[in-house]
């Protein structure tokens, strides 16, 4: 196990290095000079050159890259071109909104999707089993922002139970207010996420229900419940966990649209502003932090899968293969 952990950690490090190179090159390939973000329209060539020099975009690419890596190594994500504030603390402040939003939505989605997906498979010939499949079919077709709009119209504007958007200025200073601000966004993400999760749980359950080992266990006298608990759960959870990892990672960043619907100051909206203003250090910083999160989540998902399924222990990465 220790040897595997080392190898897997090395893989994580290599992936992160690879991702940072790709990130850096991709951003530099984008047309549009970052100096434009600093200078007014109609700036003289000298002013533009001075702006380029001040942010270092006139230096050769390899030098810029090593400079950035050096900063990263000391935990510095750089300074925003536009606000001249350090990017690191800004990202951390945004995580106060995005992390609770993502985790709460994720937990809620799992709590809904696992029993619903199991029922949709186990009771697929009943009306409510079919209804669950139908609802999940509907759920994956609904644009997340439209669902958000509908929930705002119903629960905020008509019923007046919850705020229609925004986040308290002092963040979590008043936990009750902050919590109320996140209820609708969490429900919006959780509903859309559970719709696709239900399908995966359903199909994993169907695989188990039709499997030979379950029939064997039943033939040996296990009750359905204990056969499912001992054999079914373990087998069905491997593909589901792999999907869960991907869903969690993509929600972390994919919250950008929901954050826009509910006017939340999260990581996604920071990235959206950064992109609109060609603010490279912000874009780079947000994408680097989220890539790190994506890779760490993948790492954890692999560990859990290996723990559950001994057959995966010969392989480096379980993944969604």
């Amino acid at each position: 196990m220790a040897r595997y952990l080392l190898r897997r950690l090395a893989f994580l490090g290599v992936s992160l290095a690879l991702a940072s190179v790709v990130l850096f090159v991709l951003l530099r390939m984008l047309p549009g000079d970052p100096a434009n973000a600093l200078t007014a329209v109609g700036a003289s060539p000298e002013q533009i050159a001075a702006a380029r020099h001040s942010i270092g975009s006139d230096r050769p690419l390899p030098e810029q890259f090593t400079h950035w890596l050096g900063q990263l190594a000391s935990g510095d994500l750089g300074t925003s071109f536009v606000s001249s504030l350090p990017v690191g603390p800004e990202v951390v402040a945004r995580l106060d909104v995005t992390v609770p939003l993502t985790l709460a939505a994720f937990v809620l989605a799992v709590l809904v999707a696992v029993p619903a997906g199991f029922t949709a498979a186990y009771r697929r010939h009943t009306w409510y089993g079919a209804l669950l499949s139908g609802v999940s079919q509907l759920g994956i077709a609904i644009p997340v922002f439209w669902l958000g709009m509908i929930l705002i119209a119903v629960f905020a504007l008509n019923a007046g139970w919850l705020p229609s958007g925004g986040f308290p200025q002092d963040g979590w200073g008043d936990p009750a207010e902050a919590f109320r601000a996140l209820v609708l966004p969490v429900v919006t993400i959780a509903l859309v996420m559970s719709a696709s999760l239900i399908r995966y749980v359903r199909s994993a359950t169907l695989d188990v229900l039709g499997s030979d080992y379950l029939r064997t266990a039943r033939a040996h006298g296990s009750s359905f419940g204990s056969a499912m608990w001992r054999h079914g759960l373990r087998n069905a959870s491997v593909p589901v966990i792999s999907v869960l990892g991907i869903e969690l990672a993509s929600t972390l960043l994919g919250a950008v649209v929901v954050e826009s619907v509910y006017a939340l100051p999260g990581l996604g909206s920071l990235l959206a502003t950064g992109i609109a203003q060609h603010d490279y250090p912000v874009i780079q910083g947000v994408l680097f932090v989220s890539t790190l999160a994506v890779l760490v989540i993948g790492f954890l998902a692999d560990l859990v899968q290996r723990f559950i399924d001994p057959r995966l222990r010969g392989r480096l990465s379980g993944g969604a293969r």
Partner: protein
Amino acid sequence: MTGTDLLTPAQLPPKRRSRRSATLAVGCVLAGLIALLALVSVLWLPYDAEDTSGGRLDGPGGGHLLGTDKLGRDLLTQVMTGSRIAVEAGLGSVTIAAAIGITLGVLAAFAQGWLDDTLSAFLDILIAFPTLLLAMLIVAARSATLGSAVLAIGLAQSAVVARLVRILVKRVLAQDYITAARTSGTSWPRTVLSHVLPNIWPTLVVNLALQFGLAVLAEAGLSYLGLGAPPPNASWGRMLQEAQATFTTAPAGALAPGILLVLLVIGVNLVADGLRDTLDPATRRRRS
């Protein structure tokens, strides 16, 4: 085993087939209706796209079947134009995703050792990034047009297609008939064209249909964020964004585009499900 047990398998197929084609038929009808709407919008629209002669935020009726928006433009006209944009976005993105994804996937499947590892790690990282974010980056670098949005979504999706194709091709390459084709002197390009691609086609088509739905959703999301087709092209996403403030006072504008969007995506997903059950013998046995 009793006689009735032996009879059952023979009796089951007709019933299964009818359920399969029901999914496919419902999907085709839904997606077909939107496609028809899009086709009609090319030839005829009830009003000019920039005709603001209607009253502001009128309800349905009085010469405007769905009512008007806040500038007095006919909603039906906009919704119809939106259907054209949605279909174009879906088709365009999927074409790009298929062209790049299949090429990359086939090449990756032939790669060995560290090159293979690097390529698949690269694809994994690319896939972990939400399509929408990759698309936002590309759209921000170019300008906010339908073309940029389609290109961006197509590129983001090509990673998903490439990974799928790589796995499928690897599986096919391990088969005996490939060895047979190679030993009988067939060249690699020819083997890929006449033996590999036809065998991965069923799974691929189903996935491309799903990608179509995802592309339509992604384009709507980009337009909602103001990164899609610019005015006066009424994309469903932008219509919804504009109607958000008046959801309670004039619900038609905030409901009609959303409902059509959902119908199109459900339709395409049902077509994909129906196709999978029809084309893929493995799921046919397992699922029913």
